[in-house]
Protein backbone atom coordinates (compact mmCIF):
# COMPACT_ATOMS: atom_id res chain seq x y z
CA UNK A 1 0.00 0.00 0.00
CA UNK A 2 2.72 2.38 1.13
CA UNK A 3 4.84 1.60 -1.92
CA UNK A 4 1.88 2.43 -4.18
CA UNK A 5 1.28 5.69 -2.33
CA UNK A 6 4.97 6.59 -2.59
CA UNK A 7 5.13 5.89 -6.30
CA UNK A 8 1.96 7.89 -7.04
CA UNK A 9 3.19 10.86 -4.98
CA UNK A 10 6.53 10.64 -6.81
CA UNK A 11 4.70 10.62 -10.12
CA UNK A 12 2.63 13.69 -9.11
CA UNK A 13 5.82 15.45 -8.00
CA UNK A 14 7.47 14.58 -11.33
CA UNK A 15 4.48 15.90 -13.31
CA UNK A 16 4.54 19.11 -11.24
CA UNK A 17 8.26 19.52 -11.91
CA UNK A 18 7.73 18.93 -15.64
CA UNK A 19 4.94 21.49 -15.79
CA UNK A 20 7.00 24.04 -13.85
CA UNK A 21 9.96 23.59 -16.16
CA UNK A 22 7.85 23.85 -19.28
CA UNK A 23 6.01 26.95 -18.11
CA UNK A 24 9.35 28.54 -17.24
CA UNK A 25 10.64 27.77 -20.73
CA UNK A 26 7.45 29.17 -22.29
CA UNK A 27 7.70 32.33 -20.18
CA UNK A 28 11.37 32.82 -21.07
CA UNK A 29 10.57 32.26 -24.73
CA UNK A 30 7.65 34.69 -24.75
CA UNK A 31 9.63 37.34 -22.91
CA UNK A 32 12.40 36.81 -25.47
CA UNK A 33 9.99 37.54 -28.29
CA UNK A 34 8.66 40.57 -26.45
CA UNK A 35 12.23 41.73 -25.86
CA UNK A 36 13.11 41.33 -29.52
CA UNK A 37 10.04 43.26 -30.56
CA UNK A 38 10.71 46.07 -28.11
CA UNK A 39 14.39 46.11 -29.15
CA UNK A 40 13.41 46.65 -32.72
CA UNK A 41 10.93 49.27 -31.57
CA UNK A 42 13.69 51.23 -29.92
CA UNK A 43 16.32 50.62 -32.58
CA UNK A 44 14.77 53.13 -34.91
CA UNK A 45 13.12 56.35 -33.92
CA UNK A 46 9.85 54.67 -34.67
CA UNK A 47 9.31 51.05 -35.32
CA UNK A 48 7.40 49.20 -37.95
CA UNK A 49 6.63 46.51 -35.42
CA UNK A 50 4.94 48.25 -32.63
CA UNK A 51 5.14 51.97 -32.74
CA UNK A 52 4.86 52.67 -36.42
CA UNK A 53 2.69 55.63 -35.83
CA UNK A 54 3.83 58.71 -34.05
CA UNK A 55 3.64 62.41 -34.33
CA UNK A 56 6.85 63.71 -35.81
CA UNK A 57 6.47 67.41 -35.82
CA UNK A 58 9.50 67.71 -33.53
CA UNK A 59 11.66 65.88 -36.08
CA UNK A 60 11.33 68.58 -38.65
CA UNK A 61 14.19 71.00 -38.37
CA UNK A 62 13.12 74.58 -38.10
CA UNK A 63 15.52 75.69 -40.80
CA UNK A 64 13.97 73.25 -43.24
CA UNK A 65 10.55 74.67 -42.73
CA UNK A 66 9.30 77.14 -45.21
CA UNK A 67 8.86 80.49 -43.48
CA UNK A 68 5.23 80.81 -44.54
CA UNK A 69 4.24 77.22 -45.19
CA UNK A 70 4.88 73.94 -43.48
CA UNK A 71 7.44 71.75 -45.28
CA UNK A 72 4.88 69.02 -45.57
CA UNK A 73 2.07 71.13 -47.00
CA UNK A 74 0.84 69.88 -50.37
CA UNK A 75 1.62 73.20 -52.09
CA UNK A 76 5.19 73.02 -50.83
CA UNK A 77 5.64 69.43 -51.93
CA UNK A 78 4.36 70.25 -55.41
CA UNK A 79 6.67 73.28 -55.53
CA UNK A 80 9.58 70.95 -54.79
CA UNK A 81 8.70 69.04 -57.96
CA UNK A 82 7.35 65.89 -56.31
CA UNK A 83 4.89 63.84 -58.41
CA UNK A 84 1.36 63.88 -57.00
CA UNK A 85 -1.95 62.18 -57.67
CA UNK A 86 -5.42 63.32 -56.68
CA UNK A 87 -7.54 66.38 -56.05
CA UNK A 88 -5.45 69.34 -54.86
CA UNK A 89 -8.20 70.35 -52.43
CA UNK A 90 -8.23 66.93 -50.74
CA UNK A 91 -7.88 67.36 -46.96
CA UNK A 92 -5.28 64.61 -46.42
CA UNK A 93 -1.93 63.92 -48.10
CA UNK A 94 -0.03 60.63 -48.12
CA UNK A 95 3.68 61.10 -48.79
CA UNK A 96 5.22 57.86 -50.00
CA UNK A 97 9.01 57.38 -49.70
CA UNK A 98 9.93 54.48 -51.97
CA UNK A 99 12.62 52.85 -54.06
CA UNK A 100 11.77 51.20 -57.39
CA UNK A 101 14.01 48.24 -56.54
CA UNK A 102 12.40 47.53 -53.16
CA UNK A 103 10.18 44.45 -53.19
CA UNK A 104 8.08 45.61 -50.25
CA UNK A 105 7.35 48.84 -52.15
CA UNK A 106 6.18 46.69 -55.05
CA UNK A 107 3.98 44.76 -52.63
CA UNK A 108 2.44 48.02 -51.42
CA UNK A 109 1.89 49.27 -54.98
CA UNK A 110 0.24 46.02 -56.06
CA UNK A 111 -1.81 45.25 -52.95
CA UNK A 112 -2.62 48.43 -51.04
CA UNK A 113 -2.28 51.45 -53.32
CA UNK A 114 -5.13 50.45 -55.69
CA UNK A 115 -7.55 50.21 -52.74
CA UNK A 116 -6.39 53.58 -51.38
CA UNK A 117 -6.85 55.01 -54.86
CA UNK A 118 -10.40 53.68 -55.20
CA UNK A 119 -11.48 54.51 -51.66
CA UNK A 120 -9.90 57.89 -51.05
CA UNK A 121 -7.99 59.41 -53.97
CA UNK A 122 -10.73 59.03 -56.59
CA UNK A 123 -13.27 60.46 -54.14
CA UNK A 124 -11.17 63.57 -53.55
CA UNK A 125 -10.35 62.80 -49.93
CA UNK A 126 -6.64 62.06 -50.25
CA UNK A 127 -3.67 63.21 -52.31
CA UNK A 128 -0.72 60.94 -52.96
CA UNK A 129 2.75 62.45 -53.24
CA UNK A 130 5.82 60.45 -54.21
CA UNK A 131 9.28 61.05 -52.73
CA UNK A 132 12.38 59.18 -53.91
CA UNK A 133 14.39 57.18 -51.42
CA UNK A 134 16.64 55.10 -53.70
CA UNK A 135 18.89 53.27 -51.26
CA UNK A 136 18.48 49.60 -52.14
CA UNK A 137 21.13 49.32 -54.81
CA UNK A 138 23.39 51.15 -57.20
CA UNK A 139 20.77 51.03 -59.98
CA UNK A 140 18.09 52.63 -57.84
CA UNK A 141 19.24 56.20 -58.49
CA UNK A 142 18.93 55.77 -62.28
CA UNK A 143 15.39 54.43 -61.89
CA UNK A 144 14.44 57.36 -59.67
CA UNK A 145 15.85 59.90 -62.16
CA UNK A 146 14.06 58.20 -65.06
CA UNK A 147 10.77 58.23 -63.19
CA UNK A 148 11.20 61.90 -62.36
CA UNK A 149 11.87 62.57 -66.07
CA UNK A 150 8.49 61.09 -66.97
CA UNK A 151 6.90 63.47 -64.47
CA UNK A 152 7.95 66.33 -66.77
CA UNK A 153 5.42 65.00 -69.26
CA UNK A 154 2.75 64.05 -66.72
CA UNK A 155 3.43 60.33 -67.10
CA UNK A 156 5.02 59.57 -63.76
CA UNK A 157 2.30 57.28 -62.37
CA UNK A 158 2.19 55.16 -65.54
CA UNK A 159 5.95 54.71 -65.46
CA UNK A 160 5.81 54.05 -61.70
CA UNK A 161 3.35 51.20 -62.29
CA UNK A 162 5.39 49.79 -65.21
CA UNK A 163 8.57 49.70 -63.09
CA UNK A 164 6.91 47.99 -60.14
CA UNK A 165 5.14 45.49 -62.38
CA UNK A 166 8.43 44.54 -64.06
CA UNK A 167 10.52 44.53 -60.89
CA UNK A 168 13.36 41.97 -60.75
CA UNK A 169 16.02 41.24 -58.11
CA UNK A 170 18.04 44.21 -56.88
CA UNK A 171 20.86 45.35 -59.19
CA UNK A 172 20.26 42.48 -61.59
CA UNK A 173 20.36 44.95 -64.49
CA UNK A 174 16.60 45.23 -64.88
CA UNK A 175 16.80 49.05 -64.44
CA UNK A 176 19.85 49.59 -66.62
CA UNK A 177 19.69 52.74 -68.76
CA UNK A 178 18.64 50.73 -71.81
CA UNK A 179 15.87 48.98 -69.93
CA UNK A 180 14.66 52.25 -68.40
CA UNK A 181 14.33 53.62 -71.94
CA UNK A 182 12.55 50.47 -73.08
CA UNK A 183 10.05 50.78 -70.22
CA UNK A 184 9.48 54.44 -71.12
CA UNK A 185 8.80 53.54 -74.75
CA UNK A 186 5.79 51.51 -73.58
CA UNK A 187 4.02 54.69 -72.43
CA UNK A 188 1.80 56.10 -75.12
CA UNK A 189 2.22 59.81 -75.70
CA UNK A 190 5.64 60.09 -74.05
CA UNK A 191 8.12 62.15 -76.04
CA UNK A 192 11.07 59.79 -76.11
CA UNK A 193 13.71 62.27 -77.25
CA UNK A 194 12.87 64.57 -74.32
CA UNK A 195 12.89 61.63 -71.96
CA UNK A 196 16.21 60.31 -73.28
CA UNK A 197 17.96 63.68 -73.01
CA UNK A 198 16.56 64.14 -69.49
CA UNK A 199 17.79 60.71 -68.42
CA UNK A 200 21.18 60.98 -70.13
CA UNK A 201 21.90 64.38 -68.60
CA UNK A 202 20.74 63.17 -65.15
CA UNK A 203 18.60 66.30 -65.00
CA UNK A 204 16.86 65.32 -61.76
CA UNK A 205 19.78 63.87 -59.84
CA UNK A 206 19.86 66.86 -57.48
CA UNK A 207 16.09 66.62 -56.92
CA UNK A 208 16.39 62.94 -56.02
CA UNK A 209 19.31 63.71 -53.70
CA UNK A 210 17.22 66.41 -52.01
CA UNK A 211 14.43 63.86 -51.53
CA UNK A 212 16.87 61.43 -49.95
CA UNK A 213 18.17 64.14 -47.61
CA UNK A 214 14.60 65.22 -46.83
CA UNK A 215 13.56 61.68 -45.96
CA UNK A 216 16.64 60.53 -44.13
CA UNK A 217 17.82 63.61 -42.26
CA UNK A 218 14.45 65.14 -41.45
CA UNK A 219 12.59 61.95 -40.63
CA UNK A 220 15.30 59.33 -40.19
CA UNK A 221 13.92 57.21 -43.04
CA UNK A 222 16.33 54.55 -44.23
CA UNK A 223 13.78 51.90 -44.90
CA UNK A 224 11.28 51.72 -47.70
CA UNK A 225 8.38 52.06 -48.10
CA UNK A 226 7.79 54.70 -45.45
CA UNK A 227 4.80 56.99 -45.35
CA UNK A 228 3.82 60.28 -43.82
CA UNK A 229 0.10 60.88 -43.53
CA UNK A 230 -0.50 64.55 -43.04
CA UNK A 231 -3.17 67.22 -43.30
CA UNK A 232 -3.20 69.20 -46.54
CA UNK A 233 -1.60 72.19 -44.79
CA UNK A 234 1.24 70.03 -43.49
CA UNK A 235 -0.01 69.84 -39.92
CA UNK A 236 -0.30 66.76 -37.69
CA UNK A 237 1.96 64.37 -39.59
CA UNK A 238 1.99 60.72 -38.66
CA UNK A 239 4.36 58.01 -39.84
CA UNK A 240 3.72 54.52 -41.13
CA UNK A 241 6.78 52.38 -41.75
CA UNK A 242 6.59 49.30 -43.90
CA UNK A 243 4.29 47.80 -46.48
CA UNK A 244 1.17 48.17 -44.39
CA UNK A 245 -2.12 46.76 -45.64
CA UNK A 246 -5.13 48.95 -46.35
CA UNK A 247 -6.70 48.75 -42.83
CA UNK A 248 -3.68 50.55 -41.33
CA UNK A 249 -4.04 53.44 -43.77
CA UNK A 250 -7.80 53.47 -43.33
CA UNK A 251 -7.48 53.76 -39.56
CA UNK A 252 -5.20 56.80 -39.80
CA UNK A 253 -6.98 58.52 -42.68
CA UNK A 254 -10.45 58.09 -41.14
CA UNK A 255 -9.15 59.42 -37.82
CA UNK A 256 -7.80 62.51 -39.60
CA UNK A 257 -11.02 63.02 -41.56
CA UNK A 258 -13.05 62.86 -38.33
CA UNK A 259 -10.68 65.33 -36.65
CA UNK A 260 -11.11 67.87 -39.49
Amino acid at each position, binding site marked *: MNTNKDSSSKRIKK*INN*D*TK*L*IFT*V*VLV*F*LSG*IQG*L*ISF*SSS*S*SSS*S*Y*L*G*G*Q*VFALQEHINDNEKDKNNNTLSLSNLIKQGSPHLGDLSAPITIIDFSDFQC*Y*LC*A*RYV*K*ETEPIIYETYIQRGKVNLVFKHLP*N*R*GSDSMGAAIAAQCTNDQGKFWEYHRILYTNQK*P*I*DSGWVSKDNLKKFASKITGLNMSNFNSCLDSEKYKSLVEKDIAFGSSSFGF*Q*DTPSFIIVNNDGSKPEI*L*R*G*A*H*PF*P*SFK*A*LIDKKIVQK
Partner: protein
Amino acid sequence: MVLNMMRIILPLLSIRIVFSNSAYIILAGSIAIGFWILFSVFDQLLFFLPVLVFYLPRDAITGFILSNITAVIMGIVISMNVYMLKHSKLKISKSLFSGSTIGILSSTCASCSSLGFLLISTFGGLGIVALNFLSIYQILLRLVSIVILIWALYSMHKKITKSCCILNGLDSIRNNTDRKDTGKHMM
Protein backbone atom coordinates in the same frame (compact mmCIF):
# COMPACT_ATOMS: atom_id res chain seq x y z
CA MET B 1 6.04 1.38 -49.11
CA VAL B 2 4.49 4.74 -48.14
CA LEU B 3 4.35 3.62 -44.53
CA ASN B 4 8.03 2.70 -44.65
CA MET B 5 8.84 6.11 -46.07
CA MET B 6 6.80 7.73 -43.32
CA ARG B 7 8.67 5.67 -40.76
CA ILE B 8 11.92 7.06 -42.04
CA ILE B 9 10.70 10.64 -42.28
CA LEU B 10 8.64 10.86 -39.11
CA PRO B 11 10.36 9.93 -35.90
CA LEU B 12 7.08 8.70 -34.48
CA LEU B 13 8.44 6.78 -31.53
CA SER B 14 10.38 9.68 -30.08
CA ILE B 15 7.46 12.03 -30.71
CA ARG B 16 5.17 9.59 -28.92
CA ILE B 17 7.60 9.36 -26.01
CA VAL B 18 7.98 13.12 -25.61
CA PHE B 19 4.40 14.15 -26.26
CA SER B 20 2.82 11.53 -24.04
CA ASN B 21 3.25 14.28 -21.44
CA SER B 22 0.71 16.99 -22.29
CA ALA B 23 2.99 19.68 -20.86
CA TYR B 24 5.31 19.15 -23.83
CA ILE B 25 2.37 19.56 -26.22
CA ILE B 26 1.64 22.93 -24.59
CA LEU B 27 5.32 23.84 -24.83
CA ALA B 28 5.55 22.89 -28.52
CA GLY B 29 2.31 24.74 -29.29
CA SER B 30 3.45 27.91 -27.54
CA ILE B 31 6.83 27.86 -29.25
CA ALA B 32 5.23 27.28 -32.65
CA ILE B 33 2.76 30.14 -32.08
CA GLY B 34 5.56 32.38 -30.81
CA PHE B 35 7.69 31.77 -33.88
CA TRP B 36 4.66 32.16 -36.13
CA ILE B 37 4.08 35.63 -34.67
CA LEU B 38 7.76 36.48 -34.98
CA PHE B 39 8.03 35.33 -38.60
CA SER B 40 4.78 37.06 -39.58
CA VAL B 41 5.90 40.35 -38.00
CA PHE B 42 9.29 40.23 -39.69
CA ASP B 43 7.69 39.30 -43.01
CA GLN B 44 5.40 42.31 -42.64
CA LEU B 45 2.29 40.20 -42.70
CA LEU B 46 1.22 40.95 -39.14
CA PHE B 47 0.96 44.49 -37.79
CA PHE B 48 -0.01 45.59 -34.31
CA LEU B 49 -0.39 49.32 -34.90
CA PRO B 50 -2.34 51.43 -35.80
CA VAL B 51 -4.70 48.43 -35.92
CA LEU B 52 -4.08 44.76 -35.38
CA VAL B 53 -4.12 43.31 -38.88
CA PHE B 54 -2.86 40.21 -40.67
CA TYR B 55 -2.78 39.97 -44.43
CA LEU B 56 -1.30 37.59 -46.94
CA PRO B 57 -0.23 39.24 -50.20
CA ARG B 58 0.32 37.04 -53.24
CA ASP B 59 4.10 37.49 -53.26
CA ALA B 60 4.38 36.25 -49.66
CA ILE B 61 2.43 32.98 -49.95
CA THR B 62 5.44 30.68 -50.50
CA GLY B 63 7.43 32.32 -47.71
CA PHE B 64 4.43 32.12 -45.40
CA ILE B 65 3.96 28.39 -46.02
CA LEU B 66 7.67 27.75 -45.39
CA SER B 67 7.69 29.85 -42.23
CA ASN B 68 4.64 27.95 -40.93
CA ILE B 69 6.45 24.65 -41.49
CA THR B 70 9.56 26.05 -39.78
CA ALA B 71 7.53 27.28 -36.79
CA VAL B 72 5.87 23.88 -36.29
CA ILE B 73 9.14 21.93 -36.58
CA MET B 74 10.84 24.43 -34.26
CA GLY B 75 8.12 23.82 -31.67
CA ILE B 76 8.64 20.06 -31.88
CA VAL B 77 12.45 20.22 -31.88
CA ILE B 78 12.74 22.69 -29.01
CA SER B 79 10.35 20.75 -26.81
CA MET B 80 12.25 17.54 -27.64
CA ASN B 81 15.41 19.39 -26.67
CA VAL B 82 13.87 20.36 -23.35
CA TYR B 83 12.86 16.74 -22.86
CA MET B 84 16.41 15.65 -23.58
CA LEU B 85 17.88 18.24 -21.21
CA LYS B 86 15.57 17.04 -18.52
CA HIS B 87 15.92 13.33 -19.05
CA SER B 88 19.39 12.70 -20.40
CA LYS B 89 22.47 12.62 -18.25
CA LEU B 90 24.35 14.78 -20.72
CA LYS B 91 25.80 17.95 -19.33
CA ILE B 92 23.97 21.08 -20.45
CA SER B 93 27.03 22.40 -22.29
CA LYS B 94 27.16 19.24 -24.36
CA SER B 95 23.50 19.08 -25.19
CA LEU B 96 23.39 22.76 -26.08
CA PHE B 97 25.73 22.08 -28.95
CA SER B 98 23.78 19.10 -30.16
CA GLY B 99 22.53 19.04 -33.72
CA SER B 100 19.09 20.22 -32.78
CA THR B 101 20.30 23.43 -31.23
CA ILE B 102 22.43 24.19 -34.24
CA GLY B 103 19.34 23.51 -36.33
CA ILE B 104 17.29 25.94 -34.28
CA LEU B 105 19.94 28.63 -34.52
CA SER B 106 20.27 28.22 -38.27
CA SER B 107 16.56 28.36 -38.70
CA THR B 108 16.23 31.46 -36.58
CA CYS B 109 18.96 33.00 -38.66
CA ALA B 110 17.18 32.00 -41.82
CA SER B 111 14.16 33.82 -40.56
CA CYS B 112 16.39 36.90 -40.39
CA SER B 113 15.66 37.10 -44.08
CA SER B 114 12.64 39.07 -43.07
CA LEU B 115 14.37 41.19 -40.46
CA GLY B 116 14.69 43.97 -43.01
CA PHE B 117 13.88 47.09 -41.09
CA LEU B 118 15.65 45.89 -37.98
CA LEU B 119 18.82 45.24 -40.00
CA ILE B 120 18.66 48.58 -41.76
CA SER B 121 17.92 50.59 -38.66
CA THR B 122 20.60 48.81 -36.65
CA PHE B 123 23.40 48.45 -39.16
CA GLY B 124 22.62 51.22 -41.65
CA GLY B 125 24.34 50.71 -45.04
CA LEU B 126 25.69 47.26 -44.16
CA GLY B 127 22.18 46.32 -43.09
CA ILE B 128 20.90 47.25 -46.54
CA VAL B 129 23.51 45.00 -48.19
CA ALA B 130 22.62 42.17 -45.80
CA LEU B 131 18.93 42.73 -46.42
CA ASN B 132 19.39 42.62 -50.18
CA PHE B 133 21.24 39.32 -49.88
CA LEU B 134 18.65 37.88 -47.52
CA SER B 135 15.70 39.04 -49.58
CA ILE B 136 17.13 37.50 -52.75
CA TYR B 137 17.86 34.14 -51.08
CA GLN B 138 14.96 34.19 -48.61
CA ILE B 139 13.14 31.13 -49.94
CA LEU B 140 16.36 29.17 -50.38
CA LEU B 141 17.49 30.00 -46.83
CA ARG B 142 14.15 28.91 -45.47
CA LEU B 143 14.30 25.63 -47.35
CA VAL B 144 17.82 25.03 -46.01
CA SER B 145 16.64 25.80 -42.48
CA ILE B 146 13.77 23.31 -42.83
CA VAL B 147 16.21 20.63 -44.01
CA ILE B 148 18.49 21.37 -41.03
CA LEU B 149 15.54 21.22 -38.65
CA ILE B 150 14.41 17.88 -40.08
CA TRP B 151 17.95 16.61 -39.62
CA ALA B 152 17.88 17.97 -36.05
CA LEU B 153 14.56 16.20 -35.47
CA TYR B 154 16.04 12.97 -36.75
CA SER B 155 19.12 13.30 -34.55
CA MET B 156 16.93 14.03 -31.51
CA HIS B 157 14.85 10.98 -32.37
CA LYS B 158 17.98 8.83 -32.49
CA LYS B 159 19.17 10.15 -29.14
CA ILE B 160 15.82 9.70 -27.42
CA THR B 161 15.23 6.20 -28.73
CA LYS B 162 18.87 5.24 -28.06
CA SER B 163 18.58 6.34 -24.43
CA CYS B 164 15.38 4.31 -24.28
CA CYS B 165 17.24 1.25 -25.49
CA ILE B 166 20.02 1.82 -22.98
CA LEU B 167 17.51 2.30 -20.19
CA ASN B 168 15.63 -0.81 -21.29
CA GLY B 169 18.92 -2.63 -21.44
CA LEU B 170 19.87 -1.45 -17.96
CA ASP B 171 16.44 -2.42 -16.68
CA SER B 172 16.75 -5.91 -18.09
CA ILE B 173 20.27 -6.27 -16.64
CA ARG B 174 18.96 -5.04 -13.30
CA ASN B 175 16.01 -7.45 -13.49
CA ASN B 176 18.34 -10.33 -14.31
CA THR B 177 20.62 -9.42 -11.39
CA ASP B 178 17.62 -9.12 -9.09
CA ARG B 179 16.37 -12.52 -10.25
CA LYS B 180 19.79 -14.05 -9.66
CA ASP B 181 19.95 -12.45 -6.21
CA THR B 182 16.49 -13.72 -5.36
CA GLY B 183 17.50 -17.12 -6.68
CA LYS B 184 20.55 -17.11 -4.44
CA HIS B 185 18.42 -16.13 -1.48
CA MET B 186 15.91 -18.76 -2.42
CA MET B 187 18.66 -21.31 -2.53
